[in-house]
């Protein structure tokens, strides 16, 4: 070994030692909704924060203000030598792929989309399965037999939610009417709560009492709308729609609800998405009275992010696609103190059976509408 080689070898060794001592650094590139959208992005954020606590890794967040910045943000993570860069959302596919190809020695992860670069771990979900379950619950509990679906951007990823929701609702009640509408066709559709709110009001005027939003931060418009109206009154029903049931007759209600919704009326509910949004339906800050989040379709983005950071931290990162579904609890529906009063034990048992049938392959859930 020549002297020069020795120096290089020693240098490399020193570098190796140095990098073993510095903590793993993780770059998080969020999409248009922003990391506090209380939904999809926030779930990823929470997963990364859990990893910070458990493994003492360092994270740095990047929230683009417009799509053209995304590639620069991801590039800057790579240039700074971040061990792992996670692109949150399908919009990050092209930038992650480009930067991953240029930096084959670094690790990348991509949520909701599949990249062709070998050093990218693709984290995808079978959202249709969870949407099927919440659609089933929506149809079981709807007082009018009309339920709504608000999608964010009109793209195949969200069609999976819509398809599963529709199939589940139809399976529970073949006469159910489902109104589906999308916020828009550009990435701004994830961040337009005002339009989400108007769509919700339009759906109510068509008789929908339970509405599921898979629309990122636009879904906050739906929640805000339900908070404002709380219930559907008999006089507001359009022609051809009547109250068919009242599953929530015996649920304790808040004073403001009883006051605003006196007479022949039925409560309205939203169904949350990605994160557990049930708590957002607790408008009077008292979980014991009726909350207006029927349930949430949980997409455990947090688990996927956490597991990926864990793998990198342990030096066990592998590229390729990992798909989460009902089977591995990467997809579920939320049941907690906020909605146990809304979903009866009998319904819980029915849905548990449906879930088992989906896992066993007895129920085939469509992925496109």
């Amino acid at each position, binding site marked *: 070994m020549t002297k020069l080689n020795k120096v290089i070898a020693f240098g490399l060794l020193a570098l190796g030692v140095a990098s073993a001592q510095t903590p793993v650094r993780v770059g998080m590139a969020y999409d248009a909704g*922003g990391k506090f959208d209380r939904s999809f992005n926030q779930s990823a954020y929470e997963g990364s924060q859990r990893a910070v606590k458990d493994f003492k890794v360092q994270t740095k967040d990047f929230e683009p203000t*417009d799509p053209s910045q995304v590639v620069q943000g991801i590039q800057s993570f790579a240039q700074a030598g971040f061990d792992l860069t996670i692109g949150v959302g399908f919009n990050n596919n092209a930038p992650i792929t480009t930067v991953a190809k240029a930096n084959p020695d670094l690790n990348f992860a991509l949520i909701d989309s599949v990249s062709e670069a070998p050093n990218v771990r693709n984290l995808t979900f079978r959202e249709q399965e969870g949407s099927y379950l919440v659609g089933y619950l929506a149809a079981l509990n709807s007082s009018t037999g009309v339920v709504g679906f608000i999608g964010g951007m009109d793209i195949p990823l969200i069609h999976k939610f819509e398809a599963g929701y529709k199939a589940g609702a139809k399976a529970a009640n073949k006469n159910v009417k489902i109104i589906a509408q999308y916020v828009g066709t550009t990435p*701004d559709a994830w961040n*337009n709560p005002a339009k989400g709110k108007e769509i919700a009001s339009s759906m109510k005027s068509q008789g929908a009492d339970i509405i599921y939003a898979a629309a990122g931060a636009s879904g906050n418009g739906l929640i805000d709308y339900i908070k404002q109206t709380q219930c559907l009154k008999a006089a507001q029903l359009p022609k051809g729609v009547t109250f068919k049931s009242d599953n929530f007759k015996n649920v304790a209600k808040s004073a403001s609800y009883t006051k605003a919704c006196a007479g022949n009326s039925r409560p309205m509910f939203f169904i949350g998405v990605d994160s557990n949004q049930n708590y957002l339906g607790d408008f009077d800050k008292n979980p014991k009275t009726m909350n207006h989040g029927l349930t949430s379709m949980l997409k455990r983005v947090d688990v996927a992010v956490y597991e990926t950071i864990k793998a990198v931290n342990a030096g066990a990162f592998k590229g390729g696609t990992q798909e989460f579904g009902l089977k591995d609890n990467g997809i579920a529906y939320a049941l907690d103190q906020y909605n146990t009063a809304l979903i009866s034990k009998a319904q819980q048992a029915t849905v548990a059976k449906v879930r088992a049938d989906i896992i066993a392959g007895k129920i085939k859930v469509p992925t496109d509408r």
Partner: protein
Amino acid sequence: MDFLQNLFTLAFLATLIRSTAPLLLAALGGLYSERSGIVNIALEGIIIFGALAGAVITERVEGSLGALAPWIGWLGGAAVGGLVAWIHGVISIKYRADQIISGTAVNLLALGVPPVLLGALYNSATDSKRVENALPLWGFGDVLRFSPPVFFAFLMVAVTWYVLYRTPYGLRIRATGEHPQASASMGVNVRRVRYGAVVISGLLAGTAGVFLSIGNLDAFTRNISAGQGFIALAALIFGQWRPLGVLGATLLFGFLRALSIQLGGAQVLPPSLVEALPYLITILALVFTGRAAAPRAVGKPFDG
């Protein structure tokens, strides 16, 4: 017939009014500014600043003021709108810079400032913290209920008409926009009139922003105005720079927005076409109205 009955419901009317109000406020703001001779393409940016200030101020003071907080937020949002417009005024009146460039600068600032401020206050680049006390809803029944800026917007149409055509101040605004030299020779302080008009345009556009953040929702979100400032400008041109014309034009655009929301779920037209309708009609409207009625001195700095 059934289809039409389902389409034109009370909910549709409510959506129409909510979609019209911010456009109307911003367009009336633009009217003051442009009738005095200052092009205000900064409306979009002013709406964003107003929305941001309204939400942030409300969130900051509601701990001590409670239900009074959103009203302070409204005042604050309008004041910030006026301040931003005043900056646009200084650049284009005092320093006689190109008004389009100055307006564009304000619009660019409106993209850059919110993430910085939100990052400092709430550790997020996109959202402000939700306020507990948004502006109250007033109205009749369960559906036709609106926050106060909506009523304010429609009231301002009459006020603007009166100010513009029945007061000396309105005459001065119109005169400086048509022929600043002539009005200066009659002893009108052209610069002062223009400053006043530009600041009024900021107060109104700022109120449009306040409506979007705490009058319609309960927080500021990135890009909350989504181009409404530009649509308001189009409505101003379409409405021929007249208060009633502006009312008609903004009602038309509000109607189209409401229609695109109502039709979106009905599968009558492809959703992307419905989405594009308001913009399509805007272009057609501009083609057919032209700039014939524009104040003659609009966009020209006053050197006298």
